[in-house]
């Protein structure tokens, strides 16, 4: 039996050692750890390579694990850039000491101050809002107003939202903590939990589907999930999305809660210049349009128009809270949600 296995075994070992030890090395390159998934970033990186001749190497993964890997690898980490969703993660990366500050006039001029780190450790590259999705048949937008109003007993048993383990919810709660303090926010969260139509489960899309199916009247979701459903190839999904609509809350107050996907240069970067070059490219007009549209997000630059679909939702007032605040209050938000019984 062993002898029969020898040849295949040998060949497997050879390819294996090739991939491990002999992967080709080029002079100009940027190595990226990305929590933004391959199909949402690889095409634009390929264009960058085509234009500049700089090779881009990519490992995708979950944000927190990538930050952990960066931390443990330390100064020898091969990564030059970290790309991730949600400012909560970018802040964690900064706190973990794996990023370095970058000053680039080219970037600072085009990305609004609230969407980047005040010291230049990270930059937002695309924008999303966390909004209320309501059933067009059962809910009149006139009844909707603020995030705070979601704790109103009139919504008893009517709200669908995902688990508090999700960072988007943590960031939303963190923004409220930063505005209203812990005590008031905890009261609000307890009220909101009392209005849940079901135990938190699934992702944002499932909350929207549950509203369309009639299990809840309202859902809390990021805008791009709703956009993705509207553009879906699956007729049933499209039909569900068409039964509901977006409401941007707090238009009379602070504005709708905003978040970013963004990037930072790592402290260990060996190809710092090329990485900065890539960052500038991603903040450029052309990349911005693609980067936002591929995931139904808003460009972070105000001079680049959003896609037609997103524009069809109308203009809205965005919260201008410095996003760092969401990171600062993240751990408080998690504890608060635990206490409020938000599963």
């Amino acid at each position, binding site marked *: 039996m062993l002898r029969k296995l020898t040849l295949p075994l040998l060949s497997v070992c050879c*390819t294996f050692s090739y991939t491990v030890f002999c992967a080709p090395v080029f002079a100009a390159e940027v190595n990226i750890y990305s929590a933004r998934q391959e199909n949402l970033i690889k095409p634009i990186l390929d264009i960058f390579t085509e234009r500049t001749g700089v090779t881009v190497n990519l*490992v995708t993964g979950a944000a927190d694990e990538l930050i952990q890997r960066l931390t443990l690898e330390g100064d020898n980490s091969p990564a030059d850039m970290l790309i991730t969703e949600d400012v909560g993660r970018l802040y964690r990366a900064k706190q973990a000491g794996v990023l370095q500050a970058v000053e680039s006039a080219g970037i600072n001029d085009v990305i609004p101050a609230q969407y980047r780190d005040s010291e230049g450790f990270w930059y937002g590259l695309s924008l999303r809002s966390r909004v209320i999705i309501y059933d067009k048949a059962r809910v009149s937008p006139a009844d909707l107003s603020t995030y705070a109003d979601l704790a109103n007993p009139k919504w008893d048993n009517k709200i669908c939202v995902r688990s508090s383990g999700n960072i988007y919810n943590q960031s939303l709660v963190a923004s409220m903590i930063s505005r209203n303090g812990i005590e008031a926010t905890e009261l609000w969260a307890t009220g909101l939990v009392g209005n849940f139509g079901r135990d938190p*489960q699934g992702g944002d899309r499932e909350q929207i589907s549950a509203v369309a199916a009639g299990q809840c009247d309202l859902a809390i979701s990021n805008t791009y999930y709703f956009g993705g459903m509207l553009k879906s190839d699956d007729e*049933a999904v499209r039909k569900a999305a068409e039964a509901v609509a977006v409401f941007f809350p707090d238009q009379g107050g602070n504005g709708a809660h905003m978040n970013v996907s963004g990037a930072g240069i790592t402290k260990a970067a060996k190809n710092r210049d090329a990485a900065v070059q890539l960052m500038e490219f991603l903040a450029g007009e052309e990349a911005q349009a693609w980067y936002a549209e591929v995931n139904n997000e808003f460009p972070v630059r105000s001079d680049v128009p959003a896609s037609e679909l997103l524009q069809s939702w109308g203009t809205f007032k965005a919260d201008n809270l410095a996003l760092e605040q969401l990171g600062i209050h993240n751990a408080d938000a998690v*504890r608060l949600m635990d206490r409020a019984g938000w599963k």
Partner: protein
Amino acid sequence: MANTMDKAPEGALSSLKTGFYNRLSMLGILVLCLLLCVPVLTILASVTSSSDGVWQHLYDTVLGDYVTHSLTLLAGVGVSVLVLGIGPAWLVTMTRFPGSRILEWALVLPLAMPAYIIAYTYTGMLDVGGPLQGWIRESFDLRFGDYWFPNVRSLGGAVAMLALVLYPYVYLLSRTAFLEQSVCVLEVSRTLGASPWRAFTRVAIPLARPAIIAGLSLVLMETLADYGTVQYFGVSAFTTGIFRTWFGLGSITAAAQLAAVLMIFILFLVLTEHWSRQQARYHHTSNKYSRLPQLQLTGWKRVAAMIYCILPVLLGFLIPFIQLSFWAVDTWHLVDKDSFFTLFMNSLELASITAVIALLLGIFITYSKRLRPTLTLRGVVRVMGLGYAIPGTVIAVGVLIPFAWFDNTLDAWMREHFDIATGLLFSGTLIAVVFAYLVRFLPVALNTLDAGLGKIKPTMDDVGRSMGLSPLQILRRVHLPLLQGSLLTASLLVFVDVLKELPATLILRPFNFNTLAIRTYELANQERLTEAASSALLIVLAGILPVIILSKSISRSRPGHDSST
């Protein structure tokens, strides 16, 4: 393999020499085992550090939920897999009914289906917004709440999903055991007036206990390690708690401590079972293996047996497989197909390399344990066995910490003394990935081989030794041929497990390297389940062949089995 050339036993000098080499190799194996224990020990070591009041917060809020939900999950999955696994194993082994020949191997198919994929699939079908409930509402003009429908995304749902894909472990191992049982014992019980049912419950099951327990413990460990399913269903279990504590509360110490508690709990379970078996031994004393008397079922019994055996395959494999196929066809034009071949090969490459290494290590470790069951070795192997019950991400971090430490220390030392920067040698390479797989899946191989080796009577070794064979020669000429079935089972189980593995691959892999599981995860994570179907389907397809081989070879494993039947 069995007919290698004979060598006459040599003189006293050579036996002295082999004694020395034996001791050396025993030491080598111990070191190797210790190395594989490093990730588990890294996590256990966290128990001693302080976690700044995080435990108080957990205790006040969510810890109760974590514990009760995980225990419910364990109990539910445990009972379900026994029902789904043992019954069909007995029926297809001892009776004949229409389709029983096909079911023999088809019952193993769900093993190729990763738990997170079956969870996505059923949710897509049965959720409030899914096609089935939509159809109910439309056809009967109902609204949500007007009709009863079970909620897939619940603790009960998680139990069902895990049980449906994990029962094959119990099925496989108990079937192997039933096939190996001597008919004599059963015949004796029948002549003593026991009904077939009584013979099954009072004789066959107790005799198959080590195998059933081995299967069950694999299932329970997988259940405790599962993250994908419980997280997706929003069940706050121990694993989801570990992640929440780690990232949400930012306390890697408290998270590692939670994982350590999990491990200690498992150790406790394993030891309890071991203790309850006490001195009982389970090798077969008779060598009389006549053909199994397969009872031809008739009437309602036939129908009942058919339904009982078809249901697990239908729910655990056919329905999700067909649904995935539909989705894959629907979304085929959206999927990046060019990379499929590379992804497929990458998955196969990792799975086969790990399977081969796990097999070799498994043989040497279990055999050394048999030769010299010292307390140290047994203890180390037990600690190593915990790897299977730990969530892949935690293992990955347990691998990352020592690897990065080693690389960075070596780099610093080389810089200082030779002015050479070695950088990261192992971190971020496939070596780290395979190492993590071994830590996680070697216990599967060990379990299987241990069970196989345990059935070979120690007198066989004694006979071999008295004929002057060295332990290595006995291994090669006596044990390995007898173990062929177990060897195949061990390597194929590891192979399929690696194919399905996601979290460790995700964290540890090098640049520009992806597998099928990663592609599936990326799309599913963007909540684009239907587009994830084609890569999910490829994982299942890659796993089917080994699973069928496995099942077929087990059918042939009955001692004295005539290959023409």
